[in-house]
């Protein structure tokens, strides 16, 4: 187990190196010019040239790359060329909204999707199954922004129940923190709920046809015990994988949801940096998020051993 862990952690180094090189080259080999954006719409060519020189963007790409790598090795992700603030600081500022939304969405989805998926599998072919799957298909098919606007129109504007937009830190006001999370969680969570419910149903259906389930039923075990203890635990591996990948995607940033609800999370930081060609921020976010993906995948792999004793590292 420990050997496996160390091997996996060491494997992070080449992965991150490839990510770093690819991201740097993609950004710096394209003809875009952050100096032109920084200078503003009314800037003269001389203004733009001056800024380019000050930012060091006029130097050869390989020099810029080695400087960046040298800083990276020291744990310094660099500074935003627009804000002149450390990239790590900018990312940390955005982590709370993103984490909060990721956690609330995951809880919402898991709490709804697992029972619905199990129920659909148990009642496979019945109207209950068909109704659950129809709703799942609908939820999965609707774009998040459409669900978001619908929720805002209904729950915020018509009924005046919840705020339209924004984010309040949990340390500032826990109640308002929750109030601001409700709509984005539902908008984003419906898609994940649908995905997870379908995954749970299909996996459960497979498990429910296994011989040992038939044996359990023959022994006279009650349905809840068969479903939850014997079937669901054995169906957990693909479900946990889906949940884990979902969390990683949510942490990576959900640009549309963050934009529709004006949540200042990692997704918006990324898209904003891309639109402004803020290279150090883009590079920093991608590196951090890639590292997170690797970590989540490792955790998913480790949880397999809990649900399936046959898996050993």
């Amino acid at each position: 187990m420990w050997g496996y862990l160390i091997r996996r952690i060491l494997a992070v180094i080449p992965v991150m190196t490839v990510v770093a090189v690819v991201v740097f080259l993609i950004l710096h080999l394209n003809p875009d010019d952050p100096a032109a954006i920084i200078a503003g719409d009314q800037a003269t060519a001389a203004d733009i040239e001056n800024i380019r020189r000050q930012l060091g963007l006029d130097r050869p790409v390989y020099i810029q790359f080695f400087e960046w790598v040298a800083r990276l090795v020291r744990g310094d992700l660099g500074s935003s060329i627009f804000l002149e603030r450390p990239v790590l600081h900018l990312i940390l500022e955005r982590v709370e909204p993103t984490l909060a939304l990721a956690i609330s969405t995951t809880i919402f989805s898991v709490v709804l999707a697992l029972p619905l998926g199990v129920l659909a599998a148990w009642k496979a072919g019945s109207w209950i199954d068909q109704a659950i799957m129809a709703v799942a298909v609908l939820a999965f098919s609707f774009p998040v922004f459409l669900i978001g606007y619908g929720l805002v129109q209904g729950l915020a504007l018509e009924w005046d129940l919840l705020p339209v937009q924004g984010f309040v830190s949990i340390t500032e006001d826990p109640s308002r923190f929750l109030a601001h999370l409700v709509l984005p969680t539902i908008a984003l969570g419906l898609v994940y709920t649908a995905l997870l419910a379908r995954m749970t149903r299909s996996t459960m259906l497979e498990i429910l046809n296994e011989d040992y389930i038939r044996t359990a039923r023959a022994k006279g075990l009650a349905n809840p015990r068969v479903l939850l203890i014997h079937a669901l635990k054995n169906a957990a591996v693909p479900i946990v994988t889906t949940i884990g990948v979902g969390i990683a995607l949510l942490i990576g940033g959900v640009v549309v949801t963050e934009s529709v609800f004006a949540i200042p999370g990692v997704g918006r930081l990324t898209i904003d940096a891309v639109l402004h060609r803020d290279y150090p921020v883009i590079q920093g976010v991608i590196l951090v998020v890639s590292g997170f993906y690797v970590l989540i995948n490792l955790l998913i792999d480790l949880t397999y051993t809990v649900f399936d004793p046959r898996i050993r590292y």
Partner: protein
Amino acid sequence: MMHSRFGLAKAARAALVAAGVLAAAQAAPVAAQSTLKVVVHADLKILDPVWTTAFISNRHGLLIYDTLFALNSKLEPMPQMVGKHTVSDDGLVYTFTLRPGLKFHDGAPVTSTDVVASWNRWNKRDPMGQRLASFTSSLEVVDASTFRLTLKEKYGLVLETLGKSTGNLFIMPERVAKTDSGQQIKEYVGSGPFIFEQSEWRPGNKVVYRKNPDYVPRSDPTDAMAGAKIAKVDRVEWLYIPDHNTSLSALQAGEVDYFEAPPLDFIPILERNPRIKVIDIEPLGLQGILRPNHLYPPFNHPKARQALLYMVKQEDYMRAVVGNPKLYKKFCGAFFLCGSDNETSVGSEPLQKQDFEKAKALMKEAGYNGEKIVVLQPTDRAQYNAMTMVTIQTLRKAGLNVDVQAMDWGTVLSRRANRGNPYESGYHLFHTTHGGPGTANPVSNTWFNSRCEKANPGWACDMELDKMVEDWSRETDRTKRKAILERIQTRAYETVPYVPIGQYTQPIAVRSNIEGVLVTNVPVYWNIEKK
């Protein structure tokens, strides 16, 4: 149906109250009575308004810094920080005295030394400041509150330059103003009516300003940017909400008070809402422009640029970009905006009537032979995108071979600054806008600047025109100035630095309890109160 809907709403409300969520959500606006929440048009990223020309940075500057002069509603420069000033009989020596009681946000008094240092930094970056500097013999401190400008020769735009409403001469403490003009300042201490709360600044989300309790406003009444600047709210919060629909919903729900640049197609929705007021704060408005690249064929030839004048029908553009006829002028042939002191239609005949045959003939004279015309299309900017769509259609109607290159605005900004060949890294045509008093003046109208490689992207090059602009700036007699201006415009319609494609306004929208919004061409937040 309604009954059950409200019943459901009640049940949901009860559930949320029980969860402690609703009370909190609804309590928030009450607690913020004297906070003006503004949805701004862009995210504030650069805090040095002298270093960048970005509008949002300029608006940040207007809140926290004060200026020596400011424009009144007639666009006349009026003293702001200056208490009194005198001009020598020969018009060469200007002596200024600061108003008493001016203080920076750190409590230090504003002195002439601060003014001179700020001036010397600003005039290295701002085009109008640079032009004034070229006429300046010396700028010196006389005493703590008096400073003197001595000119080499008469210059007609001294006070206009000091009082303009964009690219302002913002007065900073000397230690800050000593920052190299090529570097951004690191300390944001002004003497304006609001104080920047740096600890609450969340880039990409929120900027907070607090009322400056020590600000001493002028005693004369507020008149556009001039007169008393009285902060009537305790805080101004700028919120950056990238999604326009969300901004609209937030205004409708009362979560924000002020929507700075609502998309023009939202205006009818906003006007129908009794809780919202739509206000036009830009009497001069914006001018859309079609900018040719003067470096490469065919638009390096004046005949090809003149051909564009015959192709463009302003009303087509305005219908596509604005829609609502109340918000645009059917035709405006003035390079320096209709409604300004410098309005004239002299020379604009080619733009008044679309004539594709004439345009084709001129293109032929310019040597155009069906080569591709590269047009930059920013698909993420609604107004610029609409302008570009009209241009594409118009050019095709005129028989031009159009190569549309769709991209985001950031790429357009990068690409348009590239002097390379249009078929490799450059372009032939792009759109942008400008407006307000800065556009209304041949010196500060940066897209009109025809100083070749020193001009804005597109690099208009006509030193004869530039010489005329310089003559205009020297002239202090209004009648003579008017005559020079007409010659400038006649020349401009021959060499065509850009094509004006129409003039329109961008109203703001506020909640109905907001009073005191000033008609200033640039949004400012003093004088505004929440009733």
